[in-house]
């Protein structure tokens, strides 16, 4: 039975989540050097094109077909928009919104998840290779993992909880990012050269857009206009705030200066960590979760220097680590009073350790699956079309070498003559 209030909210939430991808583009774009700005924006914007079409063509069906079967992957019942329309859809879903809106809402998640990877691969991923990678990745990695969790697959049956995609989105993208950068290798000059962010104002603007859009991501995951959505919204807000504070405290103690990039990164770390928990916890729990993410992620991003992998904009340090922190802390804070779907409460609520174990399994399996398949996929693309731009193109920058454009043309001395 379709509810107009629920439908109105989910129409808006879908727009909010879609807006996160351009937000992410500017969050990342500000952090790269000016010669790679368009390359970064393009990879993110392009996901809004290609992922959307592949989603309705096949990926949605692979993720949400066989709904509730406790299995590994869906089927082709909804491929090519088959059986997707303005009615409430199959009864198993229990939707109060049009099925086509549910498909569109989930589509925005499928857009941003592969786009998250671009932060790790910044400045050196060949555009053609990126396009092929995310297209195949959506089908062979995202769709199955989404089925395990959102589609009523085996992880849900096991008892693991993931409200808005801590595992499906963040651990999944973070693990893939780690695999891809191991294949890609380091940027030339890293870590000796500074490679400073070219515009932190853009990064902060992007962070604001992400924070705003995340209300749609987490509160929208209630799939209705109700108290649970409101609780998820409040949790999201508080975790972002606490994440920022946590990150800044560490910076103040370790370096003596709180930075704007730290404030932005801490807020995002908090948002990542609350994602799996948003509709399952209450009270002061989101503040603890956000603080933990802010403090631990600022420490985790230093690992790349120790181990020598060029996670350029810290996708592993923020999304993989933040996603795991959120996933595991849910095992401590899950509260049946907040959401009746919590059948095993968290350790701190007296529910024992079973949920924590399920959460651990969900994190570990998602990481292992995504890392392994992404690594193989990246290797295959590397052997065939090549994952990385040439050294010359990397030096020139992605804007010109991949897209024949310049992000910023200031001043009047840059003469340009029309060819034809």
């Amino acid at each position, binding site marked *: 039975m379709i509810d107009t209030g629920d439908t109105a909210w989910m129409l808006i939430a879908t727009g909010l989540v879609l807006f996160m991808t351009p937000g992410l583009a500017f969050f990342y774009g500000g952090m790269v050097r000016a010669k790679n700005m368009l390359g970064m924006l393009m990879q993110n914007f392009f996901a809004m094109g290609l992922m959307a079409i592949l989603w309705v063509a096949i990926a949605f069906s692979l993720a949400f077909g066989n709904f509730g079967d406790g299995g590994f992957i869906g089927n082709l019942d909804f491929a090519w928009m088959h059986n997707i329309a303005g009615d409430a859809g199959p009864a198993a879903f229990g939707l109060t919104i049009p099925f086509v809106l549910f498909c569109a809402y989930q589509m925005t998640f499928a857009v941003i998840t592969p786009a998250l990877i671009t932060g790790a691969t910044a400045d050196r991923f060949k555009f053609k290779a990126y396009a092929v990678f995310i297209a195949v990745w959506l089908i062979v990695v995202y769709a199955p993992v989404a089925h395990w969790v959102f589609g009523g697959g085996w992880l849900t049956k096991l008892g693991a909880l993931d409200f808005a995609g801590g595992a499906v989105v963040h651990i999944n993208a973070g693990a893939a990012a780690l695999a891809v950068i191991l294949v890609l290798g380091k940027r030339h000059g890293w870590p000796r050269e500074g490679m400073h962010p070219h515009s932190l104002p853009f990064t902060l603007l992007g962070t604001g857009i992400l924070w705003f859009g995340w209300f749609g991501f987490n509160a929208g995951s209630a799939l209705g206009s109700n108290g649970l959505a409101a609780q998820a919204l409040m949790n999201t807000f508080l975790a972002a705030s606490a994440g920022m504070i946590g990150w800044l405290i560490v910076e103040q103690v370790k370096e003596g200066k709180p930075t704007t990039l730290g404030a932005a990164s801490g807020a995002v770390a908090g948002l990542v960590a609350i994602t799996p928990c948003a509709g399952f916890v209450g009270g002061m729990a989101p503040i603890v979760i956000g603080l933990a993410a802010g403090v631990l992620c600022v420490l985790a991003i230093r690992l790349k220097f120790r181990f020598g992998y060029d996670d350029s904009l810290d996708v592993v340090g923020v999304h993989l680590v933040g996603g795991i922190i959120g996933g595991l802390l849910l095992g401590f804070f899950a509260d049946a009073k907040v959401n009746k779907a919590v059948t095993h409460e968290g350790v701190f609520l007296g529910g024992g350790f079973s949920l924590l174990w399920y959460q651990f399994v969900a994190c570990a399996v998602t990481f292992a699956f995504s890392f392994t398949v992404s690594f193989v996929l990246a290797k295959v693309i590397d052997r065939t079309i090549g994952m990385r731009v040439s050294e010359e193109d990397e030096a020139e920058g992605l804007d010109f070498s991949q897209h*024949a454009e310049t992000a910023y043309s200031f001043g009047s001395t840059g003469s340009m003559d029309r060819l034809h």
Partner: protein
Amino acid sequence: MGDPSAAMKGYRADMKLVTAIIKPHKVDDVKEALKAAGLKGMTVDEVKGFGRQGGKTEIYRGAEYVVDLLPKVRVETVVPDELAEQVAEIIVMAARTGKIGDGKVWITNVEKLIRIRTGEAGEEAV
């Protein structure tokens, strides 16, 4: 010390200005090579120019444009006469990619060099 004008008086050393136009991404290599050779300072600025490399083609909504003034970096450093050749050589080695557009290095005479803070002149001011 005390009176800057004393040090400036008529002192004339043989100083050279080494100027290089290089590819932007070679700046760090050149800087590191000069530092390693013991140079105390250099100045860079972002410039545009054309040489034999020709232009590059950018595309905006299907229209192709030749951008013939390409971004380069100008490196300048003032050194004692006897070091000039060696410094120029270091820059050539560090900035070379072997591809067209690597740039140029030239050496010019410097009449006089004064350190603003102390008024020291000539080689003292390098």
